[in-house]
């Protein structure tokens, strides 16, 4: 990449053109990926991208523009566009300015790995070929699709009050969809996203898939019943992120779109549950020493023994309440207005059972959920969880009875995790920055094939 952007020059230019304040967000990235289909490597991709976001204030009128940049002309046109948008905007009377406290946290999280940064297409091909080999050894199991990739990036932030701050990160991802043929047909997918390559995890994920796809192919659609639900770590992580991330955002709270509005200090979850926002976890994708407006990040308990302790703030929402930012500014894109969001979420459960088997042992009838579809359609405003179990295990009298599929679940998330919480089990595992053991609650209506 030949073009080098100087954030301070961009800010100066915006100020010369009439901005009273400006902020610049730059992401440089290089991505390598390789894809396989039907047991064979089929495609490779290489991309280099430079993204720029510029937001400006003209008095209290705000505008933002950005995009993928190729030339200095692009940069100038983006600055001009941001200013022209700001000039037509109505004033934001609550505008506190851009974040004045720019800096990095005293703890520097491990998110950049030299070895991972040095990976090229040839290495990825070799590693993926080995995974295809593992699957080939299994009878009647095929790789429908698989992908492996590395992203090496640098994020830079500066505004009229300070900076720049910058951070390099690596990101490794591997995922697959395995298919079992023959009489019992089924598929199983899994993936891993970390900020460095951990080869042993790649191999163990492939071996796990080869075992799981056999059970998935035997899954039966069953009738409706009432029972307990045990969410495996991955599905538990997904639901926690979907329901809590918007609900604890100070912006959603202030705008009246969170069921947790006005509930600071109240018992919300079971007393056994603590939820931590932790930007310093090693090799997790949510880790960073500064947030998306250059504010230092910090670790905090959002729920402590079930009690809601804090919402998450960026500089704007904190200023509205006369508070300090919690270092949780998050941007959808470099040119977007930030809003508060979690870094990594860690779910800690008191007296969590050491294994999933121990947790299941206490269940009379229920489902251990391995895979769902549609959990992202849950409703964080009303607090209703929705999911369709595409693969799970029916649990009867404390042990696994058979694989099942096609059960629809709807429940009240807060009522379930406060009044009907049964406990947790198994090791805490992290999925895309959300770390949790398996969790269980009772009183579920599983709607199935009647």
């Amino acid at each position, binding site marked *: 990449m*030949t073009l080098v952007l100087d954030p301070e020059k961009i800010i100066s230019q915006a100020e010369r053109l009439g901005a009273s304040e400006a902020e610049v967000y730059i992401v440089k990235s290089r991505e390598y990926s390789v894809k*396989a*289909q*039907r*047991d*064979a490597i*089929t495609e*490779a*991709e*290489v*991309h*280099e*991208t430079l993204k720029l976001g510029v937001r400006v204030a003209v008095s209290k009128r705000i*505008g*933002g*523009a*950005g*995009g*993928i940049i*190729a*030339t200095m002309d692009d940069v100038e046109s983006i600055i001009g566009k941001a200013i022209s948008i700001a000039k*037509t*905007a109505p004033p*934001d009377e609550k505008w506190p300015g851009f974040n004045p406290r720019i800096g990095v946290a005293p703890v520097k999280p491990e998110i950049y790995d030299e070895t991972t940064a040095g990976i090229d297409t040839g290495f990825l*091909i070799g590693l993926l070929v080995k995974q295809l080999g593992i699957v080939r050894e299994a009878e009647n199991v095929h790789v*429908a*699709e698989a992908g492996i990739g590395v992203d090496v990036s640098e994020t830079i932030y500066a505004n009229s009050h300070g900076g720049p701050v910058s951070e390099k990160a690596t990101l490794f991802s591997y995922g697959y*969809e395995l298919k079992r*043929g023959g009489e019992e*047909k*089924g598929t199983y997918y899994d993936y891993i996203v970390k900020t460095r390559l951990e080869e042993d995890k790649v191999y163990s994920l492939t071996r796990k898939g080869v075992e799981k796809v056999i059970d998935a192919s035997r899954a039966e*659609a069953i009738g*409706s019943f009432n029972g307990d639900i045990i969410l495996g770590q991955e599905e538990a992580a997904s639901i926690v992120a979907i329901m809590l991330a918007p609900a604890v955002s100070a912006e959603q709270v202030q*705008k*009246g*779109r969170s069921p947790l509005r006005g509930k600071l200090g109240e018992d919300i979850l079971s007393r056994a549950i603590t939820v931590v926002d932790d930007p310093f976890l090693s090799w997790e994708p949510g880790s960073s020493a500064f947030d998306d407006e250059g504010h230092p990040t910090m670790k905090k308990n959002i729920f402590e023994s079930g009690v809601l302790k804090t919402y998450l703030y960026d500089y704007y929402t904190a200023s509205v309440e006369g508070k300090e930012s919690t270092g949780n500014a998050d941007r959808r894109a470099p040119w977007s*207005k930030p809003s508060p969001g979690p870094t990594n979420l860690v779910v800690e459960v008191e007296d969590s059972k050491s294994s999933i088997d121990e947790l299941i042992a206490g269940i009379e009838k229920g489902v251990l959920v391995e895979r769902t*579809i*549609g959990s*992202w*359609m849950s*409703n964080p*405003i*009303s*607090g*209703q969880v*929705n*999911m*369709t179990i*595409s*693969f799970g295990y029916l649990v009867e009298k404390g042990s696994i009875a058979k694989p099942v*599929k*096609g059960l*629809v679940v*709807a429940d009240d998330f807060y009522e379930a995790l406060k009044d009907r919480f049964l406990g947790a089990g198994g090791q805490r595992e992290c999925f895309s920055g959300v770390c949790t053991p398996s969790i269980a609650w009772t009183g579920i*209506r*599983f*709607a199935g*094939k*009647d």
Partner: protein
Amino acid sequence: MENVKDLVSKALDEALKLGAEFADARIQSYEYELITYDNGSLREHSYNRRAGVGFRVIYQGAVAYSSTTNLSREALLEAVQRAFSSAKALSSHPGEKVKLAEYPAVKAVARSHFVVDPFQVGEEKLEIAKVVNQEALQVKGVVSAITRMGFQRDKRIIVNSEGLEVTVDVVFSGLLQASVAKSEKGLEYASDYDSRVAGFEYIRDTDWVEMAREVSRLAVTASKAEVPKGGSYDVILEPRMVGLLLHEAFGHASEGDLVTTGASILEGLKGRKVASELVTIIDDGLVSGGYYVPYDDEGVEKKKVYVVDKGILNNYLTDRASAAKLGQQPTGNGRVMSFQNPVIVRQTNYYMEPGDYRIEEILEDVDYGIYATSKGAKGGQVDPGMGTFTFSAGVSWLVEKGKITKPLRGVNLSGQILDVLSKIDAVGRDFEVETSVFGGCGKSGQLVRVGTGGPHVRVRGLSVGGR
């Protein structure tokens, strides 16, 4: 972009000189503008753009992609060489080799119709969004309202080493309203949107205030409504819900790349009965109310494809690679999100043909069921290999003895792909296709604009989540 096209053509020649059997490129210039009014104030007004070229090179059956945002001759040559090197590295590994179905070297230019360029309109759009947002907040019981106005211009030129040159230029505009209401039962929301392949004249000529008020009234109704009891229900789906059902329950499984990789449950079922004979499903790039896809991102003309004809699986959707594997003609469904992404098979506008039933006739034969409507629906998802799909409804209604009785919220529906279309026993005579400038369909990390729709239909026995 015309100058770039010549440089790109030379880069494709270079790929052939290096030994590639085929190369193509997608040149894209994309702009998007978003205005968000939130609780009476402008939350965000932003603009973004991207421009660049993505290359695909095939060498001895191995495929590689690379892209660049630098449009100089040197950078384009470097990008195509990078793709060639990757393809060459891949080619030494054993496995099925990629071939493309034959397609003529078409030369075509297609531009969607618009009158007023939305990117040249100033304060008027802010004023409209503000008024709509304020009116949505006036409805008693509403505690929050978001109004989004979005505009997109997406110009793509597809060039390949066989001499094909196709330009598609689309202008797209829309507005979305989401309102949250509070009652003694808690918070609930409703939402609605309308988008058209059109310019700012569409925004000017539509009564958004009435739409926003209706959304707010529905949010209030929803906040007081019950969640259904979980179980199996007869369900009447309004056209937008039929679109969601088809897209999730059948559309993805009919995508040729999933069929050829073995990831679709529809593999091997061509010519077999997969639905009630009342069901005919079409994928069409040019339909009123839908997105504009006259050519796909391989430059293949998008044909009107009868995927299911009177209950029989008639055709899979294909790009050139999956068409070759399946021994079909390419159907014009090879699409990308941006110049940086690989071509995969995607639906365009996927809909059900109307039938004969009046809506009253569809309702009158339901003893106890649900009328599922879309205002607040979030979308859907399918696991095409396991055959399970799900989709959410917006504010919906309980149907008792053929009459709509009371509102329901939190309605989520699910079923099995090969089962559900056989359970359709009434297809309405009405028809609507819709699309959205705020979202689309996600697959393999790529979001593309799609349209969906159909008439009202009745499905016997869908699983509904509840307490």
